[in-house]
């Protein structure tokens, strides 16, 4: 993924290679012995089972459970040896069971620590101890964090805290965390969640308040964190999560295509202009005029689409929780979005989320792409975008009635209220979301590609970051500061949230509604029908959730 990381990995792997050579060789040799035995037993040879026993004796040095399983199977071989038919297959299982533990030996080999994890700025804290389970979304920034933790960076500061990381894709980790927290099962101490959940879960007493501790720590500098971010993580004056990285939305475009077509992208385009550009630049076999998310899901398709609805002057619900998706403004926005994709989008738009659009853009298939500002970090990285990073232009998220769609998202660390190691959990959260962490990961990667940005102002003051991000840093910073998820629409609404509606039922509602829109994108239903069913679904949700009177 990242050239710099690649190099380091190579060094580590070479070291790992030497450690494993011996064990690997013995695994190989006994594997070979097994293969010979099987070959012989296939022919009905007599000394098959006897030969298999030899590696079994070695089994004692391995993990107990596994070698026990092995013995069971060896017994199985003996008990069946009078039957020539299947000896080879039984031997096969036995061989697998025996060779595999030797491979585990590799894992048990000495751990190789990265040489260059940044030296700790503070003295190690041995007062706090405990084991914490941390669940994280498998986004590149969290994967980097995982690598840094595995390299020992956190334990240099807190040698007595054991951190178990579970890193899964967004869908799976969301499901796991939701189950765990809502049933109060207490498996996780710390987890990544978005501003959508934080106030809702805080209201249920599922999260621990962390603002007081963060404010009390002078090294942490809570006032360095963007207020727009903490605002979404606040419930009843308490701060219930700490932002790791944050994002708003912006427009990416290809400067070369615009130059060739004699077009000029304003710094703050309107959606009408964007549609004109898309029409002018669309050439289906080569470059698609506009890339947008069509993949169903409240966090996928509905994020950009809801900001378009906001910008057009539409809204999900009026103040009495009557659905407004079929209002003139909302319907116009939805139709605009779907038709933009149908006319100037790539084929299969209904399957394209963030990742797919990023891929298309990196491959040079998108003239424009409207999405999260965090994409700027990835697209501007020559290692991730080798062919088109020089032709990359940035603009503010397009406007209509409103100057901005009010997209604001952050990935945050929160602590379960029932954590049995709150001190250790807090120490981890503070470390992961600190300014020091940003420096550590930049040093670790020797670059900014996977550093968490958009959460702390001081990152934008860093000369090194300014140099790297000069083309987009200002746009990102202003977009984050201008977004107002607490008043996201032209007309008043009873909910908060920029690219979502902050009610627990929105996960299901958003999922169902975005399905209808996806069906409209591929032409399986008409746009009007999709809007009508979406509106019905929204009303039904409001009634069942006891919002609507």
């Amino acid at each position: 993924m990242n050239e710099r990381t690649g190099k380091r990995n190579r060094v580590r792997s070479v070291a790992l290679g030497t450690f494993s050579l011996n064990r690997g060789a013995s695994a190989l040799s006994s594997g070979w012995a097994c293969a010979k035995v099987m070959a012989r037993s296939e022919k009905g040879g007599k000394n098959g089972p006897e030969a298999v026993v030899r590696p079994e004796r070695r089994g004692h040095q391995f993990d107990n459970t596994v070698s026990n399983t092995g013995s069971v199977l060896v017994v199985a071989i003996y008990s069946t040896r009078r039957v020539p038919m299947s000896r080879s297959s039984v031997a096969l299982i036995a061989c697998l069971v025996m060779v595999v533990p030797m491979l585990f030996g590799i894992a048990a080999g000495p751990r190789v620590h990265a040489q260059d994890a940044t030296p700790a700025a503070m003295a190690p804290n041995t007062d706090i101890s405990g084991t914490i389970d941390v669940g994280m979304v498998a986004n590149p920034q969290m994967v980097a964090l995982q690598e840094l933790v595995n390299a020992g960076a956190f334990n240099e500061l807190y040698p007595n805290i054991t951190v178990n990381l579970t890193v899964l894709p967004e869908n799976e980790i969301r499901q796991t965390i939701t189950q765990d927290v809502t049933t109060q099962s207490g498996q996780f101490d710390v987890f990544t969640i978005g501003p959508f959940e934080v106030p809702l879960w805080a209201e249920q007493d599922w999260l621990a308040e962390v603002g007081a501790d963060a404010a009390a720590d002078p090294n942490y500098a809570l006032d360095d964190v963007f207020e727009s971010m903490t605002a979404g993580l606040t419930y009843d004056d308490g701060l219930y999560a700490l932002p790791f990285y944050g994002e708003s939305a912006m427009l990416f475009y290809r400067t070369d295509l615009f130059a060739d077509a004699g077009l000029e992208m304003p710094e703050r385009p309107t959606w009408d202009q964007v549609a004109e550009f898309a029409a002018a630049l669309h050439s289906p076999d080569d470059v698609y005029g506009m890339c947008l998310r069509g993949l169903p899901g409240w966090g996928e398709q509905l994020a950009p689409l809801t900001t378009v609805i906001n910008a057009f002057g539409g809204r999900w619900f009026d103040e009495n929780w009557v659905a407004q998706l079929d209002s003139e403004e909302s319907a116009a926005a939805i139709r605009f979005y779907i038709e933009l994709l149908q006319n100037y989008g790539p084929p299969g738009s209904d399957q394209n989320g963030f990742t797919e659009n990023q891929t298309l853009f990196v491959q040079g298939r998108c003239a424009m792409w409207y999405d999260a500002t965090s994409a700027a970090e990835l697209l501007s990285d020559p290692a991730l975008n080798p062919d088109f990073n020089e032709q990359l232009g940035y603009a503010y998220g397009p406007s209509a009635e409103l100057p901005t769609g009010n997209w604001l998202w952050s990935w945050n660390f929160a602590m379960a209220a029932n954590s049995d190691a709150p001190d250790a959990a807090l120490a981890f959260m503070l470390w992961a979301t600190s300014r020091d962490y940003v420096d550590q990961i930049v040093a670790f990667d020797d670059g900014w590609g996977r550093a968490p940005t958009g959460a702390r102002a001081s990152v934008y003051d860093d000369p090194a970051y300014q140099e790297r991000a000069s083309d987009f840093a200002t746009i990102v910073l202003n977009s984050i500061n201008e977004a107002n998820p607490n008043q996201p629409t032209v007309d008043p609404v009873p909910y908060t949230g920029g690219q979502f509606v902050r009610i627990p039922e929105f996960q299901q509602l958003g999922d169902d509604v975005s399905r209808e829109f996806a069906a409209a994108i591929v032409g399986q239903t008409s746009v009007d029908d999709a809007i009508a069913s979406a509106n019905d679904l929204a009303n039904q949700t409001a009634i069942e959730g006891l919002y609507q009177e």
Partner: protein
Amino acid sequence: MATSSRRRTRLTSRTKDRASPAWAVMAWAVALIAFFPVLNMVLTGFKTEVTAVSLPPQLIFWPTLENYREVLNINFLPFFRNSLIAALTSTALVMVLAIPAAYGIALRPTKQWKDVLFFFISTRFLPPAGVIVPLFIIYREAQLLGTIHGLIILYTAMNLPIAIWMLRSFFEEVPREIIDAARVDGTGPWREITQILLPMAVPGLVATAFISIIFAWNEFFFAVSLAAIGTATVPIFLVRFVTSEGFFWAKLAASSTMAVLPIVIVGWIAQRQLVRGLSMGAIK
């Protein structure tokens, strides 16, 4: 069909009619088409992320081990070990439970044996998603969340019906004369099973065990819902590269290859047993 001829039937039974070259060409073509997705997956694992999406799909390219290096950085082995323990232990349990049950149904049938068999099959109809929250709560109380035991318990229940079904068929295959002769000699059920039935039904036992291992190894939903925190198995290792922020087809292919490799190899070697084993009950 008589037992003797069954024993004789092997995969090489039709030795006399050698197919025409056209037949061979067609068979190879069909096989290559069916196999292509697998081949493509393996090859992609050795490509860079950029060549992975280039078209036409490159069959000849300079292979890179970069993906494997990156994937192995996650430390594949704990996942592998968890999967191995879950698959082998649950299979062992399945066999322990299924052998007496299948014996009972096949050779000591009571009046309701058919109902019982149908009951076992009907347990396979519970949609995992429907019981996942109840299971989650039960597991929370039983302290089974995030443990390998929790998975083993479920995989055993999951594979028990098919195992009983298959083993019953195999036991039916054992010639009744042999069993009747043993019973006349006063052999008890225990010795009847261990000394007569099992040795004669070894291909069936092996096939049943393989099927059970395959399904347990490949199971995703329970693993991700109940055990991902603590004892993650290989399918969970795999989805690690299905990320919402980043583009990792080559790494996904590399981790897929590693995830499927053990079962594919076992399956390749065991195909003879699988052919004989899955359908013994229908040969009669």
